[in-house]
């Protein structure tokens, strides 16, 4: 299977340079050298705590923040090298769904106009057919066609997320980046949206980059999972391996922190409990960035930064303690 999205050594740093007084400004290493690829029609999940750089990585792939270093390729097109109008035109190939359906839709425009806008901007089809296209998109995401004339505030959270999906699908993209698409929704509504996203993926052969901190949702949706910590991928494997045989102590801690609805499990405190918060991405520690919170860390972890290495054909881990 060929890879649709290829990300090579992506770095996004914020700040740097000098203040007007000539003092050097602090640099935030939001994303610090990550590599991954997603085959067509598959879903890669990125998980991690807040501040781990997962959203910044997504925004960089969409070219919504400046890339410090690295290469992003979609199909045969190098997205990271495009500028100006070329970049704008290429945007029809990659779209996004944001977390908060309340702030990501323009409150003063009707739902139909919101979904039509990308069609007009990208000049998809001829103008007379576009109303029909909007109608089809509404049907595809499970909204009624007369709802095109309503404003966002007249919809519920789940319906608004359906509008976001319709807007993202309008330009017939190959890849959709989903940044916590269901975490702002009620649990009963989450299932509706997740089922819809999976149905659309099968029908349209979509590729998803799925960002979430909800590991239950990630396990359900994703084919492959990358775990990020302080701007780096610390473990990556296919869905089955990462949940059944997690190797990195951080992945293990994340998994054991999820409260399980199964009564048999020991409840809070079972497994590896993490203490404290992640260190600041401004002054990165010299060694492994997880060493401070890691139950296994020894002197080598504090001195020497571990690289991602293969432990299996499809399983990479960045940890000195994993053989």
């Amino acid at each position, binding site marked *: 299977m060929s890879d649709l999205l290829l990300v090579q050594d992506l770095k996004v740093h914020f700040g740097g340079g000098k203040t007007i007084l000539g003092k050097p400004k602090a640099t935030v290493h939001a994303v610090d050298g990550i590599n991954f690829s997603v085959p067509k029609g598959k879903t890669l999940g990125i998980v991690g705590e807040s501040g781990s750089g997962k959203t910044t990585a997504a925004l960089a792939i969409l070219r919504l923040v400046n890339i410090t270093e690295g290469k992003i390729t979609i199909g045969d097109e190098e997205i990271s090298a495009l500028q100006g109008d070329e970049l704008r035109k290429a945007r029809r190939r990659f779209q996004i769904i944001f977390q908060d359906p309340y702030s990501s839709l323009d409150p003063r425009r009707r739902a139909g106009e919101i979904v039509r806008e990308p069609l007009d901007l990208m000049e998809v089809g001829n103008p007379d057919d576009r109303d029909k296209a909007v109608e089809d998109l509404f049907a595809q995401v499970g909204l009624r066609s007369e709802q095109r004339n309503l404003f966002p505030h007249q919809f519920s959270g789940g319906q608004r997320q359906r509008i976001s999906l319709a807007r993202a699908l309008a330009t017939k993209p190959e890849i959709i980046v989903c940044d916590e698409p269901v975490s702002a929704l009620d649990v009963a509504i989450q299932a509706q949206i997740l089922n819809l996203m999976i149905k659309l993926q099968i029908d349209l052969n979509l590729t998803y980059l799925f960002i979430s901190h909800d590991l239950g949702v990630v396990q359900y949706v994703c084919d492959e999972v990358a775990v990020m910590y302080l701007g780096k991928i610390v473990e990556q494997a296919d869905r089955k391996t990462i949940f*059944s045989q997690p190797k990195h102590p951080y992945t293990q801690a994340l998994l054991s922190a999820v409260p399980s609805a199964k009564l048999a499990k020991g409840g809070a405190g079972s497994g590896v409990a993490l203490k404290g*918060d992640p260190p600041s991405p401004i002054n990165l520690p010299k060694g492994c960035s997880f060493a401070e919170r890691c139950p296994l860390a020894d002197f080598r972890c504090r001195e020497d930064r571990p690289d991602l290495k293969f432990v299996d054909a499809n399983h990479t881990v960045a940890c000195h303690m994993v053989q």
Partner: protein
Amino acid sequence: MSLLKVENIVVDFATRAGPARVLDHVSLSVAEGQTLGVVGESGCGKSMTALSIMGLVPSPPGEIISGRILFEGEDLIQADEPRMRKIRGKDISMIFQEPMTSLNPVFTVGEQIAESLRLHEQGSAGDAWTKAVDMIRAVGIPEPELRAKNYPHQMSGGMRQRVMIAMALACGPRLLIADEPTTALDVTVQAQIFDLLKDLQNKNKTAIILITHDMGVIAQMCDHVAVMYAGKVIETGTTQEILASPRHPYTKGLISCVPHLEEIPSEERLPLMEIPGVVPPLTQLGKGCAFAPRCSQKMPDCEGVKPSMVTCSQSHSAACLALSNEVPA
């Protein structure tokens, strides 16, 4: 003997479309040292139940129509404002969902914790400060002497929620109401906060009412559960009963619509069970069961007859017509 007993409380809100029944004969109870979980979607009346207990229902537009809230035998609905002020923060306290917005940005966290101590307890301002620092230590924040002098913006989300807990527990309340205390936090921090709450509960025999929408949290933290829908309690029971043998279709839906984390994920991806539609507006509730339009097991009678609570076991009851038919009264 229960510490808090809420009996048949009814709360109406005046809206332009007429009065909306926000709480409809809600009854709950929680005993010393126990945790009661309250679950449901947004708009089901979970937070309003908490506000009623605290005497914080905004009035107008809200009005408590009837019912009793017995706290150690005293009816809080009859209590006047000065009495409620004595109880709030001292005997009953609350942790809110959003630790960013519920702390005052212009005071240090130490001052904010000391404030409730100065109001409710004897002793000098110095004593209150010392006790505030002790509380910050008790909730597991390192370097409490320094941290007490921090402003909220200098702390992370998890730290701020710890400060909220320190503040809520400063006067040693008998009852703590936690309204989605970890929804805004990462799972790793959530696990830390729950460990902390459990520790403090074991030490002080505090009763906790935990409002959440996460069945995993319920399984981990609660002894009893009340499931709410459209302003009513539709099922109550022990955690074991609710999770292992739910009787109401809404409870069943809430449990199975969430993708649960499996240690060995299945190869196949079965579609998630959905609860179609949304919670109806409270001004547009029909005569029958409020859940009927979304229910997969709806019967012809459901639209016309309001189901009453049916006892399934000593501690377990649910409001569903299918159950009433099963066990004829």
